[in-house]
C-alpha cells in the first residue's frame, strides 16, 4: 500500500495531523492498533454502569487487556501508565480538562534554572491553541488572569455550581486565583457534539456525545476527506530504506496477517510509551540515546472537603467546574521548583462514597455509621484534583520488555519511574494549600487522599525535542534529527511536563507541526 503520509496512532495528535494533511490534499493512511469506541457499552443512565464502567472503559491496559492493548511492566514504577488504545486515544477516557500550558512552561531553564527550555514559546503556540479550540469545541472564558490576554474558546464555560461558588468566594477572600474551567465539553450543540447533561461519567466515556473526543470531533471529518483509517492494525516495525530514511511500516491485522504501508513520510502519534516502543523496536532515531528516556507522568493528588450544604456533587462535568493556578509558578521560599494546577471536581454517586480512594483507609466506611457517612459525603463533598509537574530525569524511562510481548509477538514495554524529592515536596505543599482552600470555602472536614499508583494518564517526554541532535531526538517541529522523514507529534516530545493536563498543548503542537510538514514538503528528504 502506498500513501503520502503514514500516521501511527488515532488519538488526538494523530487526528489533528490527519485532518490537517487531508485538508491540504495529502493522501493519508492511519494505523490504529485498537478499534472504534463502542458506546453501546456506555449505558451511563443505568445503575449497571457503576459496575461495568471500569471494565469496559478502564484506563489501565494491563487490566483491560483489550485486543489493541500491549502489556506494560510497571514493577519498577511508582505510577501506573494509563491509556486508551483505540480510535480517539486518550480523549475517549480523559476528563476533558483543557489546559493550555502557561508561558513559563516553555522557559523552565531560563526562569527556574532546572530542566530545559522548549524550542518555541507560548506566543509561538498561541495561534494554534486558538484554532484547535475551535476544532474541538472547547468551552471556557477568555480573560483568565493566569494567561496572557488573547482569544478564548468558542463556547461559554460550564456553570461553576454551588461548590464552585463557595470556593470562588473563598479564593476571592484569600486573594487566590480561580477561573471558570476550560473544558473539552460542549455547553451548547457544536458540530458533532451535544450539550453536556452532567452525568459525571466523563472519565469512563461520554455516551451523551458532549465530550470532545476525537472519534467525534475529528475522525468523521478526516475520513470524509479520504483519510484511510485502518483499525486493529498493530505496527510490528517501522521499515528502513537503504538510504537510512524510514520507508513506512509493517503491521499485523487482527488475524495476524502482515501488511506493509510505504510512505515518503511517517508520523508517530502513539503516545509517550507507544512511540518510543516503536522506535526502540525499529532501531531508529536514537543516536542521542534519549529515546524512551525522561519519562514524565504527573504525580496526582486529591483533597476532598465535606460541607453541610447540598452541593449537588453527585453530578456535573467531571471535568472540573473551575481551576486554580495560584501556586502554579515557582515560589522562592517553598523549597521546590515548579508547581501544579488544581481542578475542582464533583465526587459522584453512592458507590464512590465507599471506596478507599479518595476517602482513605483510615476513614473506612464499613460497619456502624455506614449510612451516616454516605449521607455526609453524597452530594455534600467536593474535591480538588492536583496535577503536579514532574521534572525530566533520564533514569525515568520506557524500555522494551526483555521477556514479554503483546498477543501478536511484538515486544511489550517496561517503564521505570521514581518520583523525586521535588515532586514529593511539591505535592505536600499543594495538598496543604488545597486543604486550606476547602476549609476557607466552608468545609467542616477535609481528607487528603492516599497516594495511588493508577494516575499515569499523562505520558510525556520520551522523545525529547530540542535543537541539538546530541541532546534531543526531534527538532521543534517533531522531525527526528537522525531520520528526516520520520516525525513524532505526540506528547513524547515535551522537554518538560508542565503541570497541566496535556491534550490542549499536544493538539496545538500537532497542528503547528503538521503545517510545518506541509510547508516544507518540497524540500523534505523522502523515502525512495
Amino acid at each position, binding site marked *: 500500500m502506498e500513501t503520502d503520509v503514514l500516521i501511527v496512532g488515532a488519538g488526538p495528535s494523530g487526528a489533528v495531523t490527519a485532518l490537517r494533511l487531508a485538508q491540504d490534499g495529502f493522501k493519508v493512511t492511519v494505523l490504529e492498533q485498537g478499534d472504534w469506541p463502542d458506546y453501546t457499552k456506555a449505558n451511563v*443512565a443505568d445503575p449497571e454502569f457503576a459496575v*461495568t464502567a471500569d*471494565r469496559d472503559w478502564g484506563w489501565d491496559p494491563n487490566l483491560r487487556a483489550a485486543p489493541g492493548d500491549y502489556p506494560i511492566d510497571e514493577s519498577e514504577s511508582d505510577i501506573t501508565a494509563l491509556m486508551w488504545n483505540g480510535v480517539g486515544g486518550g480523549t475517549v477516557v480523559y476528563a476533558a480538562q483543557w489546559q493550555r500550558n502557561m*508561558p513559563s512552561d516553555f522557559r523552565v531553564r531560563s526562569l527556574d534554572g532546572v530542566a530545559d527550555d522548549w524550542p518555541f514559546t507560548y506566543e509561538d503556540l498561541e495561534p494554534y491553541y486558538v484554532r484547535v479550540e475551535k476544532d474541538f469545541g472547547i468551552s471556557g472564558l477568555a480573560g483568565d*488572569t493566569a494567561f496572557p490576554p488573547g482569544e478564548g474558546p468558542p463556547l461559554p464555560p460550564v456553570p461553576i455550581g454551588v461548590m464552585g461558588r463557595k470556593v470562588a468566594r473563598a479564593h*476571592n477572600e484569600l486573594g487566590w486565583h480561580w477561573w471558570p474551567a476550560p473544558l473539552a465539553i460542549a455547553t451548547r450543540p457544536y458540530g458533532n457534539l451535544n450539550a453536556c447533561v452532567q452525568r459525571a*461519567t466523563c472519565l469512563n466515556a461520554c455516551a451523551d456525545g458532549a465530550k470532545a473526543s476525537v472519534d467525534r470531533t475529528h475522525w468523521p471529518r478526516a475520513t470524509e476527506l479520504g483519510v484511510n483509517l485502518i483499525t486493529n492494525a498493530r505496527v510490528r516495525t517501522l521499515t528502513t530504506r537503504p538510504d537510512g530514511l524510514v520507508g513506512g511500516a509493517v503491521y499485523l491485522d487482527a488475524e495476524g496477517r502482515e501488511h506493509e504501508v510505504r510512505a515518503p513520510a511517517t508520523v508517530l502519534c502513539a503516545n509517550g510509551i507507544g512511540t518510543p516502543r516503536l522506535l526502540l523496536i525499529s532501531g531508529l532515531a536514537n543516536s542521542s540515546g534519549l529515546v524512551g528516556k525522561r519519562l514524565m507522568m504527573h504525580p496526582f493528588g486529591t483533597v476532598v472537603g465535606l460541607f453541610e450544604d447540598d452541593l449537588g456533587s453527585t453530578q456535573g462535568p467531571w471535568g472540573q467546574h473551575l481551576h486554580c493556578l495560584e501556586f502554579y509558578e515557582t515560589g522562592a521560599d517553598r523549597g521546590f521548583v515548579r508547581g501544579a494546577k488544581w481542578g475542582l471536581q464533583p465526587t459522584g454517586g453512592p458507590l464512590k462514597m465507599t471506596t478507599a480512594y479518595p476517602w482513605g483507609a483510615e476513614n473506612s466506611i*464499613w460497619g456502624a455509621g455506614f449510612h451516616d457517612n454516605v449521607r455526609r459525603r*453524597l452530594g455534600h463533598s467536593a474535591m480538588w484534583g492536583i496535577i503536579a509537574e514532574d521534572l525530566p530525569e533520564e533514569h525515568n524511562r520506557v524500555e522494551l520488555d526483555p521477556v514479554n510481548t503483546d498477543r501478536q509477538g511484538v515486544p511489550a514495554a517496561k517503564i521505570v519511574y521514581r518520583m523525586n524529592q521535588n515532586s514529593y515536596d511539591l505535592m505536600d505543599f499543594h495538598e496543604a494549600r488545597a486543604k486550606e482552600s476547602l476549609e476557607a470555602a466552608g468545609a467542616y472536614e477535609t481528607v487528603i487522599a492516599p497516594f495511588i499508583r493508577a494516575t499515569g494518564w499523562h505520558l510525556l517526554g520520551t522523545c525529547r525535542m530540542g535543537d541539538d541532535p546530541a541532546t534531543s531526538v526531534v527538532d521543534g517541529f517533531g522531525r527526528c534529527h537522525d531520520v528526516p522523514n520520520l516525525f513524532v507529534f505526540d506528547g513524547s516530545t515535551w522537554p518538560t511536563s508542565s503541570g497541566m493536563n496535556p491534550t490542549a498543548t499536544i493538539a496545538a503542537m500537532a497542528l503547528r507541526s503538521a503545517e510545518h510538514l506541509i510547508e516544507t514538503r518540497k524540500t523534505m528528504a523522502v523515502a525512495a
Partner: protein
Amino acid sequence: MRHLDPLADRLIPGEDGMPSASEAGATGRWLDAVLEARPDLRAPLEGLATSTAGLTAEEAIEALPERDPGGWTALTSAVVAAYYFNSEVCERIGYAGQRAIPLGSPDYEDLLDSVKSRAPVYRPTP
C-alpha cells in the same frame, strides 16, 4: 449467595432507618443483577466461603483485605453496588441516579471582578 449475608451485613448494617445489605436484597436479587453485568465477580465471591471459613463476620472483615484481596474487592464492590441497585434504598438517601440535567445559566459573573482586580499569576516570558 446467602453465605455472604453475615459479611454483607457487617459491611452495611441495618441502622439509621436504612435496611441492612441482606434485607435490601444486596445478597439476593440485586446481587444477581450485578453479576449479570459483571459475571467475573462470581468466582471471587464464591471463594469467600473458603477464605472466611471458621471466622466470625467481624474477624473475616478484618482479615480479608490481606487474606483474600480479590475476594475483598469483589465483596465491597458487588455488594455495595447491589445495595444501591435497590431504588428504595436510593430514594431514602435522596439519590436519583446519574440523570440527564441540562447545564444551567452562567453563575460566576458576580465573582469575577475580584479575580480581575488582582495581578496576573503567570510570569511573562520573552
